[in-house]
C-alpha cells in the first residue's frame, strides 16, 4: 500500500526496512548471529516536512539514515523515493548509475563538523567538490556557486580561500551545510547536526536549518537525541527502540499525548531548564536491550511498567491507532499516558508547581526534593 498525503505522494516511503549486521566469530569468521540494527521499519516523509528519528544510543537511527542514502545496503525492504511526482525509485534496489543520479537529490549533514571536512582543502574546493564531480567543469561557474552557497549559510564569501581549521565549530557546521546544498537536494538527512556544538551556537544552526527549509523547500530527516531540539525542529517524530519503530505521529501529539510507554518514559526523562518545573521522573529500570539478542515479544517489556503476559510472548503490530498516529503496543488503545504537560511536580509540599497531577499511574520513583526548605526567615 502506498501512502498518499495532502501534497500527493510522500517524497520518501520506507517499507519494512531491515538491516542486519552479521556477527562473526573464530578463525573461519563463521557467522554466529546478527545484530538487528534496523528490524522491520516503515515510515514516510512528506515533501517539505521535517521528520525526526529519536531513541537511545544504538537503537538504529544512523543505520536507518545510511540505508536511505545507500551508504550501506539494506538486508530487506523498500525505500521508495520520488524526486518528482511521477518518478519513483526503489533506493534499496537501485543500480550504481541510478544511485549516482539519486545522490544529488539526497544529501547528508554530519554530526562532527571537525572530522567531516578535509583539512587539506580550502572552502572553495570543499564546497565546490560535489559540483565538480557532477560535471560543473568551469572554475568560474563553480566559484560563483560557492559564493552563493556561502552567503546562503551566513558566511562571508571572502572566506573561500581559507582552510577548515581557521573556523569555529558552528562555522564548520555551516560549511558542511553549504556543501550538502551544493547540488540542490530535495531530501537532507541530518544526523545529530547540532549535538557537537556549544549551546549558543546550536541556536544559530537550528535557525539556519529552519530558514533554509523555508527558502529552498527542503525535506529533512533529522536524527537527534536531544528531545527539546527535536521538538523545536520537527513536524513529525518517529521513536525507535532496539531497531524498531514504536511510535510515530505529529509533534504536538507525540509530546502531549503519547501512546507508547517508551515514549512516555523518554519524555519524562528530559530535564527541563526551569527549577520551578522540577518533576517526578519515570526512571526506567535496566538497560536498553541488546539488538543481537533482543527479548521475546515486545522488546520493551522487561522495562515496561505496563507489561502484561501477552507482551512477553507476542510482538505488537505497527498499526495506525488514530489518523496519522502509528504505535506498536498491545495496550496502545487503553493506556492513558502522560505527555510533557502532565508532568507531576517533584514535591507537592513545595507548592510552586503549575502541573496538575493528572495521571495516577505515575509512580513516585525514588527522587527526593532537591530544594532544601528555607526556614530562616
Amino acid at each position, binding site marked *: 500500500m502506498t501512502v498518499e498525503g495532502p501534497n500527493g505522494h510522500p517524497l520518501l516511503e520506507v517499507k519494512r526496512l531491515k538491516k542486519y549486521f552479521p556477527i562473526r566469530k573464530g578463525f573461519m569468521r563463521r557467522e554466529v548471529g546478527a545484530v538487528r540494527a534496523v528490524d522491520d521499519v516503515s515510515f514516510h516523509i512528506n515533501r517539505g516536512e521535517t521528520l525526526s528519528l529519536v531513541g*537511545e*544510543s544504538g537503537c538504529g537511527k544512523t543505520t536507518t539514515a545510511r540505508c536511505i542514502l545507500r551508504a550501506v545496503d539494506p538486508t530487506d525492504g523498500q525505500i521508495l523515493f520520488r524526486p518528482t511526482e511521477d518518478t519513483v525509485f526503489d533506493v534499496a534496489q537501485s543500480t550504481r548509475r541510478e544511485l549516482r543520479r539519486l545522490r544529488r537529490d539526497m544529501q547528508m549533514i554530519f554530526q562532527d563538523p571537525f572530522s567531516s571536512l578535509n583539512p587539506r582543502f580550502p572552502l572553495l574546493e570543499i564546497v565546490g567538490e560535489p559540483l565538480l564531480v557532477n560535471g560543473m567543469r568551469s572554475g568560474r561557474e563553480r566559484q560563483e556557486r560557492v559564493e552563493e552557497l556561502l552567503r546562503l549559510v551566513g558566511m562571508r564569501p571572502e572566506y573561500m580561500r581559507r582552510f577548515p581549521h581557521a573556523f*569555529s*565549530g*558552528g*562555522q564548520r557546521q555551516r560549511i558542511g551545510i553549504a556543501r550538502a546544498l551544493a547540488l540542490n537536494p530535495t531530501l537532507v538527512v541530518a544526523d545529530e547536526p547540532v549535538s557537537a556544538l*556549544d*549551546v*549558543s*551556537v*546550536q*541556536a*544559530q544552526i*537550528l*535557525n539556519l536549518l*529552519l*530558514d533554509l527549509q523555508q527558502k529552498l523547500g527542503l525535506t529533512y530527516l533529522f536524527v537527534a*537525541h536531544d*528531545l*527539546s*531540539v527535536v*521538538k*523545536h*525542529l*520537527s*513536524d513529525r517524530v518517529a521513536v525507535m527502540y532496539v531497531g524498531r519503530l514504536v511510535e510515530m505521529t505529529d*509533534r504536538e501529539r507525540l*509530546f502531549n499525548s503519547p501512546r507508547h510507554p517508551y515514549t512516555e*518514559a*523518554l*519524555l*519524562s*526523562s*528530559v*530535564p*527541563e*531548564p*526551569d*527549577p*520551578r*518545573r*522540577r518533576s517526578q*521522573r519515570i*526512571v*526506567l529500570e535496566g*538497560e*536498553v536491550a541488546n539488538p543481537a539478542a533482543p527479548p521475546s515479544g515486545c522488546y520493551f517489556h522487561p522495562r515496561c511498567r505496563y507489561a502484561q503476559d501477552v507482551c512477553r510472548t507476542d510482538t505488537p503490530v505497527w498499526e495506525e491507532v488514530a489518523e496519522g498516529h502509528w504505535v506498536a503496543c498491545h495496550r496502545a488503545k487503553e493506556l492513558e499516558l502522560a505527555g*510533557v504537560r502532565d508532568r507531576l511536580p517533584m514535591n507537592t509540599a513545595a507548592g510552586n508547581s503549575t502541573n496538575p497531577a493528572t495521571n495516577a499511574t505515575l509512580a513516585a*520513583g*525514588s*527522587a*527526593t526534593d*532537591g*530544594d*532544601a526548605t*528555607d*526556614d*530562616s*526567615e
Partner: protein
Amino acid sequence: MATLAAGKRRPLLRVHNLKTYFFPDEGTVRAVDGASFEVCAGQTLGIVGESGCGKSVTARSILRIVEHPGGIVEGEIRYLHRTDGREVELDLAQISADGPEMRQIRGGEIAMIFQEPMTSFSPVHPIGSQIVEAIRLHSPLGKREARERAADLLRQVGISRAEARLNEYAYQLSGGLRQRAMIAMALSAEPRVLIADEPTTALDVTTQAQILDLLRQLQTDLGMAIILITHNLGVVAEMCDTVVVMYLGRVVEEGSVDAIFHNPKHPYTRLLLQSIPSLYSEARVPLPTISGAIPHPYNRPEGCPFHDRCPQFIPGTCDRHVPELQALDEEKSDQLVSCFLYHEPTDERA
C-alpha cells in the same frame, strides 16, 4: 541561599578569586581567571558554561591536579578539613599538592567523577581491584573486607550481580554501568564533597535520569556537598541549589537556582537561557541567538570578556575595564553579577 547569608551553615568549601593559567609555548591561557563560589554540606552547586570556559580546570584546581604547564597563580581554596575529629580550615591553594594533607583530602574527603569515563578506570585491571585499591588508600580495611565494601558500594549505586561485576573490565560495561561504577569508586572513602564533571553528558536521557536520581538519593543519605559541572541547563535546573555561570574563565553570574533561571541579570546568562529550545516553547520559530562564537583562548577580548558578543555593550567602558563579580544589591546579597550594567568600573585602567 538565604540560610547561608544568615550564617546558619558554614560552607565546607570556599573558592575565592581563583586563577589557574597554562603557559604553553604559544602564550598564556587564562583558563580560570578569578572564580569565586562556595558550597555547603548537603547542597548542590552547579557550574555551567560552554566548552572551554574553565569548568574542568576549576575542578582540577580544587583537587590540585592541574597538569603541566599549568598552575594556580592566585586565589584561595578554603576547605574545612576534618582531622582527629576536629575541623581545620586549610587553603588548598597553598599546601603542597603531594603533601600528606592533600593526599588525604584528594579522593578521600573530596572525590571526583571525571568527564572522560574511560580514563578513570584502567583498562588492564578489573574494576573491582581498582575500587578495592581506592578503598584501602583511605581506610585501614584488609583486602577481604575492602572487597566486601566494594561490592556493597556497587549495590548502593544500583548495580546488580555486584560480586560478579567486580571481576569485569571497564570496557565490558555499558555507559550507564560504567558511570555508576565510577560513582561507586568516588564514594568509596565517603567523601564530604563530590565533584561530578559532566557525569551524564555521554549518556542517553533515560540513563541520565537514573544517574541524577542516584546522585540525589546519595546526597540525601550521605549529606555530601556536590559540585555539579555541566553545560546542560536542564540538568542544572533539576539538580542544583546554587549556580555559577562561567564565561572565558570568569564567573559572570552566581545565585540561587531560582534567581539564575527566573531573574537572570548578566546579558550572557539571559541569552544563554533564551537560546535553548524547551519542551514548552513554541516550535519552529527562530530562537534568540548570541552573535559570534566563543573566542579562541589566545584571543581574549580586552575588558569584559563577553563584550564582542554583548548586545548591551557600553563603548568606552566594557572594552576598557574588567567587571568584577559583585552583589546585585547590598541588602539581599545572594545574587552576584559581573557586569557594568549593574556597577561602575573599579579598576584603575582607562
